[in-house]
C-alpha cells in the first residue's frame, strides 16, 4: 500500500485493487496508517483519496526536528545536572582552563 502511495495519491479502491481485500478491510488499513502518521486521507465527494505524509518521509526535515528535540533534551538534562550540583562549592567541577589564543 505504501509502495503504491509513494508513486502518488490514490483512492481507497485503487489501493485495494492489487490486494485481495474487501473495501472495508482496505479502509481499516488506511485508518491504521493514518493513525501512525504515515498517511493522510481526505474525502472528495464519494471517494477517499490517500497520500503519503511528506513530512514523515522527508528524512532531512525529520532529522532537523530530531536534532532540535535532541538539543532540548540535553538542555533539560543540563537543568537537572545544575540542580544536582547546586550545593557543591565553586560549581559542578572546575572549569577547564580556557587559554586565550
Amino acid at each position, binding site marked *: 500500500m505504501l509502495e503504491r502511495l509513494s508513486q502518488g495519491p490514490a483512492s481507497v479502491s485503487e489501493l485495494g485493487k492489487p490486494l485481495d481485500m474487501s473495501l472495508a478491510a482496505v479502509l481499516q488499513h488506511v485508518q491504521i496508517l493514518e*493513525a501512525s502518521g504515515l498517511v493522510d486521507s481526505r474525502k472528495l465527494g464519494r471517494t477517499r483519496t490517500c497520500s503519503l505524509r511528506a513530512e514523515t518521509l522527508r528524512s*532531512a526535515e525529520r*532529522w532537523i526536528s530530531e536534532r*532540535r528535540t535532541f538539543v532540548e533534551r*540535553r538542555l533539560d538534562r543540563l537543568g537537572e545536572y545544575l540542580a544536582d550540583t547546586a550545593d557543591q562549592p565553586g560549581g559542578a567541577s572546575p572549569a577547564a582552563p*580556557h587559554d586565550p*589564543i
Partner: protein
Amino acid sequence: MSDRSVIHDTFAIERTYPASPSRVFAAFASKEAKDTWGDTGGLDEAEPATGPVEFDFRIGGRERFGNVYQGVNYTYDALYYDIVPDERLVYSYEMYADGSRISVSVATIEFAEADDGTTLTWTEQGAYLDGIDGKDAPRLRHGGTSEMLDGLAKYLA
C-alpha cells in the same frame, strides 16, 4: 538525476536556569561535566562507537565522539572558534552517519545573567546535506522509520 541536495535551517532554543552564568558555563567546559549531561551522557538506547574521542575545550580545539544509535554509527566532530568565559561559545560541527557527512552546523551558545539565574540561548545554523536525502537515505532513515514501524506494529497488535 542528481542525488545532491542542501537544506538550510536555523533554530534557537532559550532556557533559564537557577544558576550563575559561571556554573552554567562550567557545565560546558569540562569533559567530566559534559559527560554527565551532554551529547555522550544519558542518550537512551545509544552505545558508544569505536573511533576517536577528543575533548579539547579551547579556541582551535576539537571535540570528537561517536555513538551507535539504532544500528547507525553517528560521528560528531566539532571545532571551537570562540570561547568567552561565562558569556559565549561558538563552534562548528560536522555529523557523519555511517561515514556519510550529513550536516555541517554552527552552534552559538550564549549565557546571559537573568534576575533568577542564567538565560542560555542555543542557536544552530545548519546545512543538511544529501547524505540524509540522497542515495544513502533509505539506509540512514532506517532508524527513524523502524521506530515508526514499531509503533505501527504495536498499534496493530
